[in-house]
């Protein structure tokens, strides 16, 4: 198990480093003058000069890439074109909002998805099971940004129940929470469907397994069989799948941030693309990739730790 953790950390490190190189190389992968690519065809002379200097475009390609990688590794992501602020600090400001959004979205999805899935599994083919099935499919097929837009339409515009813009003040938790409700729900909707279905399928498979038969045969109470024995087994593949989907979740956070005008990495990156503020784009994407890789790692390791068959290698029999 320990060896695996090291291997996994190593792999994650390789991915991140590779990403740094790719991002550093990106402008050069596309044919054409890098400055024109970054700034677009109608670039002013002064701005071009700034870009040239900032990105060291007069140096050989390898030097450019290496200096970016080296800078990234030490936390320096350059300065943005427009205001010459360090990219790292801009990202630092935006980062907490995105993380809070992603975490609360995931939390909401789990909070509602898991019980729904378990309940449906305990009453297979009942009306609630069918309802859950239909509901989960419907939820899965709503693209998060559509969900966000609809939610905003309904709750913020039509009903004026919740705010539509901004993230509120971090210092004022209640206000912040109020601003968090709609965006995290938008994120959570798709995932609720997935989780409910996944939990239901796992639970049904587990309840049909031999060891569940044993539990019933020895007279364990139903509640204990469902909520203790079966559920623990079902959580494991659920976490595994969640881990895989974390990247998508974080990517969807981008959309949700735009829709609800929340400050965050997503908004930062997209705005910077529109304003052709390339260093922020590059740095922001790198940070997002690091978050995704870290999240994947945590998910992967935690489900391996939860499953005793993996955690404790079987002794020779």
């Amino acid at each position, binding site marked *: 198990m320990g060896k695996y953790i090291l291997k996994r950390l190593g792999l994650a490190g390789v991915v991140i480093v590779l990403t740094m190189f790719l991002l550093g190389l990106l402008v050069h992968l596309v044919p054409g003058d890098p400055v024109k690519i970054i700034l677009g065809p109608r670039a002013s002379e002064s701005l071009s000069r700034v870009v040239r200097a900032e990105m060291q475009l007069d140096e050989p390609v390898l030097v450019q890439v290496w200096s970016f990688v080296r800078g990234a590794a030490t936390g320096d992501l350059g300065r943005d074109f427009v205001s010459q602020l360090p990219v790292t600090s801009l990202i630092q400001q935006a980062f907490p909002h995105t993380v809070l959004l992603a975490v609360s979205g995931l939390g909401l999805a789990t909070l509602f998805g898991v019980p729904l899935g378990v309940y449906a599994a305990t009453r*297979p083919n009942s009306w609630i099971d069918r309802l859950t099935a239909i509901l989960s499919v419907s939820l899965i097929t709503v693209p998060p940004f559509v969900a966000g837009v609809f939610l905003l339409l309904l709750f913020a515009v039509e009903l004026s129940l919740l705010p539509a813009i901004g993230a509120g003040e971090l210092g004022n938790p209640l206000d912040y929470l109020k601003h968090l409700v709609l965006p995290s729900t938008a994120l959570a909707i798709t995932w609720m469907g997935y989780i409910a279905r996944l939990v239901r399928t796992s639970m049904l498979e587990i309840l049909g*397994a*031999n*060891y*569940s*038969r*044993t*539990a*019933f*045969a*020895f*007279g*364990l*109470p*139903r509640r*204990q069989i469902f909520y203790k*024995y079966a559920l*623990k*087994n079902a959580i*494991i593949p659920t976490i595994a799948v969640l881990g895989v989907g974390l990247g998508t979740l974080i990517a969807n956070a981008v959309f949700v941030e735009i829709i609800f005008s929340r400050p965050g990495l997503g908004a930062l990156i997209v705005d910077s693309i529109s304003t052709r503020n390339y260093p922020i784009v590059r740095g922001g994407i790198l940070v997002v990739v690091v978050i995704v890789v870290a999240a994947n790692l945590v998910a992967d390791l935690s489900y391996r730790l*939860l*499953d*005793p*068959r993996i955690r*404790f290698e*079987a*002794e020779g*029999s």
Partner: protein
Amino acid sequence: MAAAMKRSGRAPDASSKIPLPHPDQKECESLLVVQGLDVVYRTRELRLRALHDVSFDVRPGQIVGVVGESGCGKSTLSAALMRLLPPNGEITSGSIRFQGRDLSSLTPEQIRQMRGREMAMIFQDPLTSLNPTFTVGTQLIDVQAAHRQGHRDRALLRDRAVKMLTNVGIPDAVERINDYPHQFSGGMRQRIMIAMTLILEPQLLIADEPTSALDVTLEAQVLELLRRLRADKGTAILFISHDLGVVAQLCDRVVVMYAGRAVEDGDVESLFERPLHPYTKALLETVPSRERRGERLATIPGRVPSLSALPSGCKFAPRCSFVQEVNRGKEPRYLEVDGRHVRCNMYDPASGYQGAGIQQLENG
């Protein structure tokens, strides 16, 4: 045949038995009485009759074997007894009386209390019969707690679990009780299952092919544990198997099943020495024996019919050497012959079968 089995040492050992109740004693003394049991599985397209008119009984302290090939309904029988049929299975006729009570009259909670505590079951595949994400100790403790043994004192339950594990031969039980099932071998897992049973001391243990997945040495150990269970606690055992040799070693009585029907039953000596049903006879002949070394292995021609395409009349008729026209028309009744039961038209004077059944069988 049975003589040969006796010589090879695989014969019922009279010394290990508690004195059996006299065969004349009334049915109400029986621990388990199954009468005319019918079980049907419903699929999208068909209704399949997995069991039909199955009747037998088990007395306290008896070991009754249920023999038959794959697909004869043995597993369905055990599931029906424990009320663990899948959602598409249903008991459509007949009754099961356990400890004098009709099981269909019990509430779900009463059935739950019965399972494990009064009627328990161990399964064929020990590798998958224990929950992989909980320790052996937790599972043993929870099973006891479910039946309110020990008044919620988990430390006490843990001690009993440790003692029981040692009892069934798990070394270092005190440490190993905190291990997970996958850290034990198959043989040890089967013992843990037996320990789970022993700890509750049920009156009846249904053993569904408990040794089929084990090698001969382990099998012998498990059989020994079962014998001890009967000797020490007086537990009755319903031993389901396809292995005639093991059944001969262990059981007092045997029920032979074919295509969902009970076709013959009787005490083990009579059944093995003088089988009444052609199927039983043919089965016994297929068991290889030292005596007949060098001879071709006997088989029964044909195949077990699939439940969706059962022949009319006697289900064994297509493969029977003594078949007559009448057998294709009427399904034979389960009649009493000589203190045993057999489902064969040969022994039913009202069936229209020509010729004296028993002599034909012995000569044939």
